[in-house]
């Protein structure tokens, strides 16, 4: 039954689904796992950097992306679709800055990206994006972690996983997460969660971790300074990996 309604994105199936979006979610669920954990003083997002061959120069492959100084993003699913969304997100953040001369709050940027993803579920001749995104940002309301799906729906999370191993990873996180977790513990937990479903050897070159931490401060003239999102360098990742060995 689903097959008769699955070829056109803009046609609902009798059960009320848009089958193309279901298929997009399958593309996401066959992608490598990504984790996001919100701590009291920051957020960590992490993913596997699965190189298809040992000949690939994985130092130049970037999965965790910085969108603007206070927001970072990671994905599960199709890499090329992700690149397009990273560019759109970066442009949206700069457009906001052109008007207001400040960084966008996380929720506003998430809404923008989610609208873009939704557009591609309601236009002719296009297909949905085959990625789910984990967006981590720090604004005046504090640290916020959001997941955005191919359909364009988004949710805030305290801790979550997307991709291949998400069911096991989320069970693992449910046990280990508590509201008072601090960033150092969160990074440790994220690495352990990734390790659960990791195929092969986990080294500082096969995982990517991004963090945002700090506090919102104000300069004398009233301008607000937000914490900056950054990726952990391979040597920092190596230190964390040594701690869990």
């Amino acid at each position, binding site marked *: 039954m689903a097959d008769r309604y699955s070829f056109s994105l803009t046609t609902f199936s009798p059960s009320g689904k848009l089958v193309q979006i279901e298929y997009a979610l399958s593309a996401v669920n066959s992608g490598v796992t990504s984790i996001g954990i919100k701590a009291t003083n920051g957020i960590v997002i992490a993913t596997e950097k699965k190189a298809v061959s040992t000949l690939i120069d994985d130092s130049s492959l970037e999965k965790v992306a910085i969108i603007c100084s206070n927001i970072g993003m990671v994905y599960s699913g199709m890499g090329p679709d992700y690149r397009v969304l990273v560019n759109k997100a970066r442009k949206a953040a700069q457009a906001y800055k052109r008007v*207001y*001369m*400040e960084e966008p*709050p996380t929720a506003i940027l998430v809404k923008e990206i989610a609208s873009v993803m939704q557009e591609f579920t309601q236009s002719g001749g296009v297909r949905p994006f085959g990625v789910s995104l984990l967006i981590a940002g720090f604004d005046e309301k504090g640290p916020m972690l959001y997941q955005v799906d191919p359909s364009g729906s988004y949710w805030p999370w305290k801790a979550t996983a997307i991709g291949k191993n998400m069911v096991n990873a989320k069970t693992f996180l449910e046990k280990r997460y508590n509201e008072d977790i601090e960033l150092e513990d969160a990074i440790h937990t994220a690495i352990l969660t990734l390790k659960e479903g990791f195929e092969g050897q986990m080294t500082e070159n096969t995982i990517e971790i991004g963090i945002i931490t700090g506090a919102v401060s*104000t300069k004398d003239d*009233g301008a607000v300074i937000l914490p900056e999102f950054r990726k952990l360098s391979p040597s920092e990742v190596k230190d964390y990996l040594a701690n869990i060995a």
Partner: protein
Amino acid sequence: MEYNGGAVVAMVGKNCVAIACDKRLGVQAMTISTEFPKTFQATPKTYIGLPGLATDVQTLSEKFRFKVNMYRLKEEREIEPRTLAHLVSSTLYERRFGPWFVEPVIAGLDKENRPFICSTDLIGCINFAKDFVVSGTTSNQLYGMCESLWEPDLEPEDLFETISQSLMNAVDRDCLSGWGAQVTVITPDQVITRTLKSRQD
């Protein structure tokens, strides 16, 4: 800019700001209304003053009301005065080669109740001031009055006196402004708007 006339001034006091404007609307020499104040509330603690061509005053006050409301709905918080200043600036620059004929003044308290004032020119160049800003056909006279009368850390009542005297005496030397004045003093607890009777000529 000298078709309808008008004057706006804003000053910083101790944990307070004040913004004042005249109430005249004219068509060159002929006064057609004495109830045309040029200050508009953007948020409970921020006001925008818009002197200049009256049709642009009306249109821009409505445009800014729209943008501030959308901001409040999307971001679920009130816009800060500094952010509003940049919003005004980018809105004006959008019309760089066919500008709005207004020179806005923004005055308010930010979320820590720190005073903030600034003015922009008709194409959006922001002038962040620490003491006072002036705008309109009476700007030269206002510069003179404010420079002599203003001092730092005035209490709200004293700030009201200072800004009122600056405005009243400046517009008396400008035929295109006057016919009454409206003064708004913004403090962390309350906002008081007073209407002044001045020389009706």
